[in-house]
């Protein structure tokens, strides 16, 4: 039976239809796509080690643009300009401090001094700087490549380079095809859009610190945020993981010694007798430095994760814990810890604080820099009642770190360097201020 015309037509059309259907899958029938991906990332900026080392210089006093850690020695205040160098301030008259010079040290965040030698970091190097004559400051020795962990460091061909900063970059990428589905934030299935994920280390630069007094009559006094400190004939430094020892028997010839691995997120170091109190975001470490070349761990006092400067006095350690983006956690408090038994530190009392940073103690007075909440002065004669004995609260200033010096308090913060006379604790007097960005 012959097919009807309708079915003959249908057969012809079905063939054509199948041809088209095949073409539907075979043909390059592609979408026109224009994708614009705009994002911010932090681009690493590198400098060669020779550029960094050649940049050391002593120049005329500069306006303070950002105050970092402080150190005091023989009537002079050494104020760190984070990442840039050190302001030398004549403080023979605390009511009228005079900014006298600026030492340009790229990558400097920490310092300590003894005798006529100022020890300062410069990214990966330790500098021993002779400050006996302020008109003729010079490097006596550069100990190279002793701080490799704090800063990314690699070799680019024959010349080494140092990561100096991260520069914020707003990037616009335009693609003429798909990004694909987003696998996770910033990463797309189809090969575009991988973002820079380098660690933003500028903050960790700011964590680096200044030192506190050590043994020996001619070393200076640093703050509680210090990463450098001097005890006896040794300079101790901490990076995020390690405790490093430098022999400074010959002050102008520091020699790198042992390095002791501690943990991670190490922040501060404070000498107390022949012990070293080390603050980290996970707890307080106590090291025995009776053999100063080879300190070893005695004990650890753990606490919640937070930023943690520590000082010690009269068998009691004072630890401030603070929260924040960088510090993690939600804890803001002062822990008072009995360290009579160094192998078994015991929490005595905890007092609520607002956002405590550095702290310092002189006899019965405890000074706590509360960040944006200002400066607090407590009567610490009874360690169990500190929180109930607030003597003064300067809440209209930003306070980062303090150094109490026999009646004169040095305090740094976002607003500059402040000094107070606390010789009469009932009547603390403001003495002077060097403001950030003040014209000289």
């Amino acid at each position, binding site marked *: 039976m012959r097919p009807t015309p*309708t079915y003959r*037509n*249908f057969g012809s*059309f*079905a063939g054509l*239809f199948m041809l*088209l*259907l095949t*073409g*539907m*899958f075979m*043909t*390059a*029938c*592609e*979408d*026109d*796509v*224009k*994708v*614009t*991906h*705009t*994002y*911010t*990332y*932090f681009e690493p900026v590198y400098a060669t080690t020779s550029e960094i080392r050649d940049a050391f210089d002593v120049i005329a006093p500069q306006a303070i643009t950002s105050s970092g850690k402080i150190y005091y020695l023989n009537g002079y205040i050494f104020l760190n300009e984070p990442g840039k160098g050190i302001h030398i301030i004549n403080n023979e008259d605390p009511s009228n401090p005079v900014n006298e010079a600026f030492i340009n040290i790229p990558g400097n965040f920490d310092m300590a001094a003894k005798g006529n030698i100022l020890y300062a970091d410069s990214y990966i190097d330790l500098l021993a700087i002779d400050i006996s004559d302020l008109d003729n400051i010079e490097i006596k020795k550069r100990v190279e490549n002793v701080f490799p962990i704090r800063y990314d460091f690699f070799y680019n061909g024959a010349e080494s380079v140092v990561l100096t900063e991260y520069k914020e970059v707003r990037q616009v990428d335009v693609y003429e*095809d*798909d*990004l*694909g*589905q*987003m696998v996770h*934030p*910033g990463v797309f*299935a*189809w090969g575009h*859009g991988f*973002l820079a*994920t380098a660690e933003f280390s500028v903050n960790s630069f700011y964590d680096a610190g200044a030192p506190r007094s050590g043994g020996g009559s001619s070393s200076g006094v640093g703050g509680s945020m210090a990463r450098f400190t001097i005890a006896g004939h040794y300079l101790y430094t901490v990076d995020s993981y390690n405790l490093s020892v430098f022999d400074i028997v010959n002050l102008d010839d520091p020699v790198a010694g042992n390095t002791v691995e501690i943990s991670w997120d190490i922040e501060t170091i404070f000498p107390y007798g022949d012990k070293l109190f080390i603050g980290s975001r996970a707890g307080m470490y106590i090291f025995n430095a009776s053999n100063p070349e080879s300190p070893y761990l005695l004990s650890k006092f753990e606490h919640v994760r937070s930023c943690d400067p520590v000082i010690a006095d009269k068998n009691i350690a004072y630890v401030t814990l603070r929260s924040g983006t960088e510090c993690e956690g939600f804890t803001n408090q002062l822990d008072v810890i009995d360290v009579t038994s160094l192998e078994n530190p015991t929490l005595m009392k905890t007092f609520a604080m607002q956002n405590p940073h550095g702290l310092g103690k002189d006899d019965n007075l405890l000074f706590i820099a509360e960040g944006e909440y200002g400066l607090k002065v407590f009567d610490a004669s009874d360690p169990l009642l500190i929180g109930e004995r607030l003597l003064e609260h300067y809440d209209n200033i930003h306070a980062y770190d303090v150094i109490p010096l026999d009646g004169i308090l040095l305090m740094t913060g976002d607003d500059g360097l402040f000094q107070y006379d606390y010789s009469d604790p009932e009547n603390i007097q403001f003495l002077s201020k060097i403001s950030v960005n003040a014209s000289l």
Partner: protein
Amino acid sequence: MKLITHLLRKGLVLSGLALFSYSTLIAQTTTDPESPPPFKRIYHEGELGIIQGNSDGNEGSAFALNVINGYRFSGQLSAGLGIGWQNYDEMDVMPIFLRLSGSLKSSGSTPYVFADTGYGWAWIEDTPEFVRILEENGGVYFRPGIGYSISINNWSLNIFTAWLMQKSSYRYTYDDGWGPDNSEVSEERTRKRFTAGISVRF
């Protein structure tokens, strides 16, 4: 809130399709099945199709629904108004379009051609929590195609294939680890696809 908006949109599309389908059903019940359909008359058509094309793997196949109500001017020419729903991986599109079609013969089974022209509203499907949609826009919809109509009493079963173009764009931000809304993506896409399917016309 996102879920509610999503459901409302889908509800809107389905309501539109249902409304069109309902009018089709009413028309069917008023047609005398014994008498051949006159050349000049209102017609109703429902389509179900698949959409296929190359989009660098971002979107695979999609399916499409269309409902058209129109008028047959003669045995060979007709025009209608349609509403549809295209379900892509990342977007839904609701086109509203004008259909013009012409068949080779005025009666019986016959090849035919058609062209849809209109505007497709588009919106993003589900998004992760870290994504914030800033803008989503549809665009021009165009679909020319050919088909074959098999006449069965006073209705017809059609198979068709067509080329489809649908413009759309969207813009969103997301947290890439450097903070909320740090990254922004905008996409302008012209989908060029082939479709195939079947339809029923009354």
